[in-house]
């Protein structure tokens, strides 16, 4: 059944029918001319021309009506009336040109199709019944002599007695039937294709608005929002004392003699303060959930840098690291600092899942099928029980003892991957270990840029100087 949302569609369909009918009227007049003038069939030409003219005139009327009224009710009424008049006109055309002998009787089929496309089921069935009634009525009236019959015959007798004419006639009707059927099928499928496109565009729009897919998602995003507010408050408070520390360390550095051993100490302190600054900034970006300023960056390098950061931690926990990265560059569009944060977090989780030691595999792969870059981190720990698997990205969800984890790590990772337009998946077999996959889109040109990136990037692989490049102001 049609719904209110179909109003526009119906209105468009009615216009389509009107355009189609204008052609049909001309076609009918042309066919009448060919039949009477060229083939010298004894059709009732004035009747045929009058019917074609009638079709043309009521078509103009409906065109005018469609321009003036576009309500659903008006469209339904107009469509029903049009189809009924079309059936009547077709019956009249047949009546004036051989009645049931006329091979164009098949054209009733098109009216049934049009009714099926435009109307509700019951209305379409009613229109089809009307077609049957009109055809049957015509035959009965002709047989009883109430209506005059114009047999389809030429000077040589009944048309189907002339084999060549019969073949040519059937052929012509078949070709025109096929062409019209093809045209209808194509326009119907084209419209449904367009409709699908509209629907998928609508879905994309909805997805863009980041509507939480479920109650769980909603809860997660609410928790994240309060987490964000908290983070912003903390960042603001910390930045002030940090300013004092940074300025004073800098001054002490400037004042100390170059040979003073304190210089090295101060330099390390300064480096760490600058690192804090970066972390707070990311926290703020994360809290605001804004764009992050992604850039084309080598995924291999993200992995290598992350592994460097956790090497000692792994050794301490008797975990063997098995990194894998291909020889060629894998360029993706990301914020590298955030991706390193994600990988380090995921790998540390993996290490913590193996209290008795084990192996941590961490690799980066190019998924040619989906054109994605995938980081995979796999541990040989105890795995995550099924009921917990669905909750691991929830903020404040943790299985660690109090004081050992905040339950924020993975929810932050989830969010970071999301704002980098990627996705993170976890699957786990109890007793077998856990595998985390982070999929990231590659840039349009990223894959072809491998050579150039090398030439332009600095030692760190940064596109524009230091990681400060993405600082917000």
């Amino acid at each position, binding site marked *: 059944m049609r719904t209110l949302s179909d109003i526009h569609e119906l209105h468009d369909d009615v216009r389509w029918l009107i355009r189609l009918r204008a052609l049909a009227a001309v076609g009918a007049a042309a066919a009448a001319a060919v039949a009477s003038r060229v083939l010298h069939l004894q059709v009732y030409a004035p009747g045929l021309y009058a019917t074609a003219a009638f079709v043309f005139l009521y078509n103009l009327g409906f065109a005018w009506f469609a321009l003036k009224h576009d309500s659903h009710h008006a469209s339904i009424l107009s469509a029903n009336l049009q189809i009924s008049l079309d059936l009547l006109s077709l019956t009249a055309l047949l009546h004036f040109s051989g009645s049931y002998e006329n091979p164009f009787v098949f054209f009733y089929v098109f009216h049934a199709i049009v009714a099926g496309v435009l109307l509700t089921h019951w209305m379409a069935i009613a229109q089809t019944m009307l077609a049957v009634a009109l055809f049957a009525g015509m035959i009965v009236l002709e047989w009883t002599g109430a209506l005059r019959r114009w047999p389809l015959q030429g000077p040589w007798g009944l048309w189907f007695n002339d084999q060549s004419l019969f073949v040519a006639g059937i052929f012509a009707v078949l070709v025109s039937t096929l062409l019209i059927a093809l045209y209808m099928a194509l326009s119907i499928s084209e419209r449904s294709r367009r409709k699908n496109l509209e629907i998928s565009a609508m879905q994309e729009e909805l997805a863009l608005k980041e509507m939480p897919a479920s109650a769980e998602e909603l809860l997660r995003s609410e928790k994240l929002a309060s987490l964000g507010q908290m983070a912003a408050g903390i960042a603001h408070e910390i*930045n002030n004392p940090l300013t004092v520390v940074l300025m004073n360390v800098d001054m002490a550095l400037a004042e100390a003699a170059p040979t003073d051993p304190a210089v090295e100490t101060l330099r390390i302190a300064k480096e760490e303060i*600058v690192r804090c600054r970066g972390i707070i*900034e990311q926290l703020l970006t994360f809290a605001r959930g804004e764009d992050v300023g992604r850039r084309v960056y080598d995924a291999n390098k993200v992995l290598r840098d992350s592994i460097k950061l956790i090497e000692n931690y792994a050794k301490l926990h008797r975990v063997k690291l098995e990194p894998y990265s291909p020889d060629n560059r894998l360029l993706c569009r990301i914020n590298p600092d955030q991706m390193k944060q994600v990988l380090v977090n995921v790998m540390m989780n993996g290490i913590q899942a193996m209290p008795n030691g084990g192996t941590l595999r961490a690799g980066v792969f190019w998924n040619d099928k989906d054109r994605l870059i995938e980081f995979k981190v796999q541990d040989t720990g105890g795995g995550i029980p099924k009921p917990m698997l669905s909750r691991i990205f929830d903020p404040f969800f943790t299985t660690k003892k109090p004081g050992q984890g905040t339950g924020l790590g993975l929810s932050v990772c989830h969010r970071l991957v999301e704002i980098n337009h990627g996705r993170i998946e976890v699957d786990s077999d109890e007793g077998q270990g856990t595998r985390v996959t982070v999929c990231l889109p590659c840039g349009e040109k990223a894959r072809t840029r491998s050579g150039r990136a090398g030439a332009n990037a600095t030692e760190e692989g940064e596109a524009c100087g230091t990681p400060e*490049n993405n600082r917000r*102001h």
Partner: protein
Amino acid sequence: MEHPKTIVVIDDEERICQSFERVLSKDGHRVEAFTDERQALARVFAGGVDLVISDLMMPQMTGVDILKAMNARSIKTPLVMITGYATTENAMETMRLGAIDYLPKPFTVDELKSVVARGLKSSDVDRAKLPAAPRGTFEIRGHSWVRRCDNGDAIVGAHPFILACCGRVTGVELPMEEDELIQGGACGKLIVEDSRVPLRLWAPISGDVKAVNGRVAEDPALLAAAPFTDGWLLRLRPLRIETELKNLKPAE
């Protein structure tokens, strides 16, 4: 030695004021630091101030209030805004109201000195003598500019005012093609003679980098020679230019 410059510092945290005093007075400036916004504003109104450095979020008045109060009295003293809670919105508003620069906390001494030097120099720059922007140019006031191309792209460059304030540019560091820029985020760095830290340029709009002006990278002098034309820096595919242009100032 040049006659000492008077710098008014406004921050509600005593320790920050003290640090400013220590750092800047070492360079021979006369620093007058205030933890009370109203007293500070009265001092600025009294005149004879070469530069104002103000915190953004303070209990009585915000840095934006101070800027507005100065604008209302047509006080042209350059102002540098500092803040511990930097967002694109307050950065853009601060610049729109005429701040000379915007410095997120925490910053290094070198970063501070470079901003202060630019701020002090800005008073000597005669804006009337700077090249005029072509029609259709929008700017982060005196900082960077953007202009739409016919094909929907936008070109971005450095404003002649900031170029005049910062001294000779000896090199540029630009993002790469396909990098994503955010309005109010960095869109490149100018290596400046006599400064230990590069000058960070802020992107006037968000967008993906489509092309980088290689000629400027080879010959940075082109920047000052033709800031609005051949000296462009980046060509972007804008992300949401319609809404972002509202944050910018149309060229007169």
